[in-house]
């Protein structure tokens, strides 16, 4: 696609209306984590929308009639702005007209990808890596489960329940997925998993970076593989995977999925209610729970992790000032945590700082990307706190 081709071709009617509906009031700047750590208004949400409107105008309407070229600097500025964003959706959550930015930004990124200007940095090789190894990190499939999978947990060949570990959990946040499997094992219901070479990327990193070409294929591969194992319920702990599975897989698959998608905290909550799982030990500590953006804002899952934590004997649960649907991004979002490392570290440290200021003993996370980046943000930081994944914590107490 050439730069002179009309901008906005990838947008739905609702998204075109959203671009117009932005009043440029700037209220979202107060909630944008990237603004909080950079203070650069040129990459703020209303500025991105203003720039995209300009790009649309220059390739449509009167300016197109008069043969004006696309401003290449504007296009480059827009590309930088749309990729430096963590796509956490806090701007949309606080928007006075309710823009759905968790879905608008990836589609605007797709407009840039179609022009060969995006994605940026390590994101560029993701499709090839996913093609080669099944994951965006280019790690061998043989190492997907073996380094962390607990020996005492049995995986059924076929079962109605399946567990999807996800690439980030399996390669970058292994205590988290190990905790998941230990808890599933303790609940005792038979569950199955795909072989490591078949459990490929769910598509989320490609989607979030605006690279949509492989999404249908990946979805079909995974859905067909789970159907072949007789799966009726697919459980996952990664908020990003759960988000794309529940929201978008049906579209890529071409209809309703033959199984339901559940976040692991829902499954564990049910197990606690049905007494299939009990805490054998208590925890006399103050813990603070961080809501992942794609779990709380993304799919509305807010109560279940809190139910689990409150069920731990003697525990004291604290809340961040911005929590639930209003939670602040930890910095790992938008598949930019390696590209915009400094921003991500600064955002991670804001989360750590608030947890320490609230005198929490542990910072409880529920997302593998958060887990990796906030742990990284802790290195060399003057404030220190013990970071733990929610299922890692549960697995230590059952």
């Amino acid at each position: 696609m050439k730069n002179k081709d009309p901008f906005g071709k990838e947008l739905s009617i609702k998204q075109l209306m959203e671009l117009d509906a932005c009043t440029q009031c700037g209220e979202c700047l107060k909630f944008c984590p990237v603004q909080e750590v950079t203070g650069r208004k040129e990459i703020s949400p209303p500025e991105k929308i203003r720039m995209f409107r300009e790009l649309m105008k220059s390739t449509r309407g009167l300016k197109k009639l008069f043969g004006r070229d696309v401003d290449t600097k504007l296009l480059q500025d827009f590309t930088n702005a749309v990729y430096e964003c963590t796509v956490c959706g806090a701007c949309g959550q606080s928007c006075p007209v309710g823009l759905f930015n968790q879905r608008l930004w990836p589609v605007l990124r797709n407009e840039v990808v179609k022009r060969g200007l995006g994605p940026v940095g390590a994101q560029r090789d993701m499709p090839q890596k996913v093609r080669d190894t099944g994951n965006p990190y280019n790690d061998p499939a043989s190492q997907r489960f073996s380094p962390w999978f607990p020996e005492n947990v049995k995986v059924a060949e076929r079962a109605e329940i399946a567990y999807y570990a996800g690439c980030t959990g399996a390669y970058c946040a292994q205590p988290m997925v190990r905790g998941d499997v230990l808890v599933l094992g303790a609940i005792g219901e038979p569950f199955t998993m795909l072989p490591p070479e078949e459990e490929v990327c769910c598509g989320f990193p490609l989607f979030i970076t605006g690279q949509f070409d492989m999404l249908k294929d990946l979805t079909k591969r995974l859905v067909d593989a789970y159907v072949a194992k007789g799966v009726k319920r697919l459980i996952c702990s990664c908020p990003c995977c759960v988000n794309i599975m529940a929201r978008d897989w049906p579209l890529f698959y071409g209809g309703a999925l033959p199984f339901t998608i559940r976040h692991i905290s829902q499954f564990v909550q049910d197990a606690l209610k049905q007494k299939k799982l009990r805490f054998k030990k208590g925890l006399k500590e103050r813990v603070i729970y961080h809501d992942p953006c794609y779990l709380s804002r993304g799919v509305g899952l807010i109560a279940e992790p809190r139910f689990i934590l409150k069920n731990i004997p003697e525990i004291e649960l604290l809340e961040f000032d911005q929590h639930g649907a209003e939670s602040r991004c930890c910095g790992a979002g938008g598949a930019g945590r390696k590209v915009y490392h400094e921003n991500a570290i600064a955002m991670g440290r804001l989360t750590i700082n608030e947890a320490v200021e609230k005198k929490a003993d542990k910072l409880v996370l529920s997302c593998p990307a958060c887990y990796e980046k906030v742990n990284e943000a802790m290195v060399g930081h003057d404030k220190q706190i013990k970071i733990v994944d929610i299922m890692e914590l549960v697995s230590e107490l059952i």
Partner: protein
Amino acid sequence: MGTILVLTAYLLYLLFCFRFLIRVLLWYKAVKQQAAIREAHVWSCRTVASTAIEVLFFTRLFHTNKLLWTASWTFHLSLGFIFLRHTWYFMNPVPELIIFIQPVGIAAGYVLPLSLLIILIIRIAGGRDSYVSSYNYFLLAALLIISLTGLVMRTYYQPDLIAVKDFITGILIFHPDALPGSVLFTLHFLFALLLLPFVPFHLFTAPIVIFEANRREEGLGMILHEK
């Protein structure tokens, strides 16, 4: 001068229509089913009612910035009354309702520039968290000029209202009458015309987007919690 102003009025009105037409074509040609945009949608009386309340009272803005909400809501409300009051100059005979709201419209004429000034101050003094585009400055400046010239005309230098009404209705029926001999009116009318092609489209799309946001938010709980 009158002829130029009348021709400008028709030209700018055409530009506004062209801009609107381009938007409608764009919406018509938009992708129907897009990658990664499935939403858990609901349609209920509650969604319609909450949308109506949000559109009328800007409740989302109220939650984020109460001072901006006060200024913004007052601005939109007073602008609405001023528009209604101004229909006096477009209609013959004038409906009872328009006669009835004249005092409110006149009061709104005093409130409008004040609310605009507050919005401008909030934007400028907002510091690190504030954002103003040049387009927003243009809108604010044009609205301030229009409202202040209107206010001065109303308070000190009233033009010949019969001539104003003949001029306006003349334009509407494509039979333009002479321009009233008032510089203030000419300025007031000219800036109102200049604003026409730049009318912010959020006036038309924001209610739809708010409605969609409410449907999405009501459906959020159903994405993972469906039976």
